[in-house]
């Protein structure tokens, strides 16, 4: 078995033992289920909105807050924590390259996130099926795309967490910076952007400039992908207005998210390989 897979397997085993997998899955499932059952209340059941579409809208809004947080919690510790505990020193005396350690951990953490997301959100679909809701193929496709892009959003933040972890000297700093980044990308950026748009009143910021600004934040890329990608969904998300001006295809948005994963991962690998133990 090669070195990357060996490390991946160890990370997964540790995440299971540390109850990370259990905690993340339960958290996502509990929130997904409560949104599923409460979610139809505000819109009422006779407006014509299909339950699945509503679940997608509310779940993807939830994902933007929660998945990055879980991803950063798992990843911020990955390098600096192992260095502080002293396990990294021994590991690197073995015949593995540092990038292999990083990629191995990445696959492991991604597997944990993917498992938690699929099972947690899958529970929502299961609940809808059990209550006899109707769903069509388009709705299911949108839901699958939502799960897939949620995992991808997780990958982005795992990679960002590694970069932080490879740069800083101690775990406390890594945790602080991670929380700061989470606040910035999940809350502050959108508020600032909104404020900017209100002040600007559509004078100077063109549609393409807005698109560019949205692409600079991975959570907005995720939002664009899920809330505008499918016609039914965008109707209920309040993003229908934006869809008219959005010229970005789903493939392009996925590619941007992939780039948001690969670039921090590459920088993390670079910082890690330069680091002296």
């Amino acid at each position, binding site marked *: 078995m090669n070195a990357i897979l*060996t490390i991946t397997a160890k990370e997964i085993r*540790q995440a299971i033992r540390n109850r990370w997998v259990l905690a993340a899955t339960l958290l996502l499932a509990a929130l997904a289920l409560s949104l599923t059952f409460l979610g139809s209340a505000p819109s009422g059941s006779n407006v014509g909105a299909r339950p699945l579409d509503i679940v997608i809208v509310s779940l993807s809004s939830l994902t933007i807050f929660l998945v990055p947080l879980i991803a950063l919690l798992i990843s911020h510790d990955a390098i600096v924590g192992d260095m502080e505990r002293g396990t990294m020193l021994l590991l690197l005396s*073995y015949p593995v390259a540092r990038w292999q350690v990083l990629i191995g951990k990445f696959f492991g953490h991604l597997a944990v996130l993917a498992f938690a997301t699929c099972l947690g959100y899958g529970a929502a679909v299961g609940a809808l099926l059990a209550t006899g809701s109707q769903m069509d193929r388009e709705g299911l496709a949108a839901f699958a795309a939502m799960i897939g892009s949620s995992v991808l959003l997780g990958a982005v933040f795992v990679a960002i967490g590694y970069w932080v972890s490879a740069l800083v000297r101690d775990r406390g700093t890594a945790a602080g910076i991670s929380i700061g980044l989470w606040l910035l990308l999940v809350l502050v950026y959108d508020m600032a952007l909104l404020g900017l748009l209100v002040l600007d009143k559509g004078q100077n910021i063109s549609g393409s400039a807005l698109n560019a600004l949205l692409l600079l934040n991975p959570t907005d890329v995720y939002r664009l992908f899920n809330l505008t990608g499918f016609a039914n969904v965008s109707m209920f998300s309040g993003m229908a207005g934006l869809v008219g001006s959005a010229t970005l295809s789903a493939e392009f948005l996925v590619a941007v998210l992939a780039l948001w994963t690969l670039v921090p991962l590459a920088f993390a690998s670079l910082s890690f390989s330069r680091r002296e133990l």
Partner: protein
Amino acid sequence: MTVTVQITDVSKRYGRIDAASGVSFELGQGEMVALIGHNGAGKTTLMKLMLGLIHPTHGSIRVLGEDPAAGQFSARRRLGYLPENVSFDASLTGRETQRFYARLKQEPLAKAEQLLDVVGLGAAADRRVGTYSKGMRQRLGLAQALIGRPQLLLLDEPTTGLDPELRQTFYDAIQRLAAEGTTVLLCSHVLTELEERAGRVIIMNRGVKVADGSLDELRRLARLPTKIRLKVSGLASGEVPSWLAASTPHRRLNGHIVEIDAAPEQKLDLLRRVMAAGTSVEDLDVMSPSLDELYAHFLRSAETPR
């Protein structure tokens, strides 16, 4: 003798601190070498350099025919390392940990698991490492270092936390490996332990190698006096025995024991004179300078010229 480690004029700077400067030595196959020095003398730095974990500021290092920092790993498969204060992932069991490291070295898992029995962890193999005592973690550290019959063993403070019996088994295992051709480099503070075992001693001080040689060679170089203790009966308390020149440093210990500091070449001469004088000697002790004393001596002589 095949050279396994070759360190040529190696220096390592951390900011303004010289962790190692101008260090050169070679280690041969089957050698058992003790690397001693204060904390911060550069022992751990040298080990990390040999592992390729850090790059030398100056000089070159070859370990098992490779440059360890060049990113090739075939040498690392034949190398065992036990870091100081070794630590493991607390949530894995001893057996899982051992299997993990064996996989990384691409060695058979069953053989690696047997090593747990060798270090006396067989019964605790399926417990989580988090529940292990310090000594048990140390034993696990030894077990992982021995995976795959390494040709070079780098052991940083290997016997801390081990009880005397386990210490003995540990040194026996190491000596067996050395006899089969493994180069062993040991760092330790417990000098008395190394004295009987290490064929060669390298003394480091502030990043500089101050002495290197077998214990006998170091004794010759240091010219430290041998302590001779004679238990003599019927000697008045202030009396200097007739066979002892007044210039020879000596002292009286609890009444009837005379302790003499004899230069190496005076040793036999002195004993002959004692015998010729017909003094009634009840007991005799000859103590060559211990590694502790040699170490202190070389550190002193390294400090004075500065």
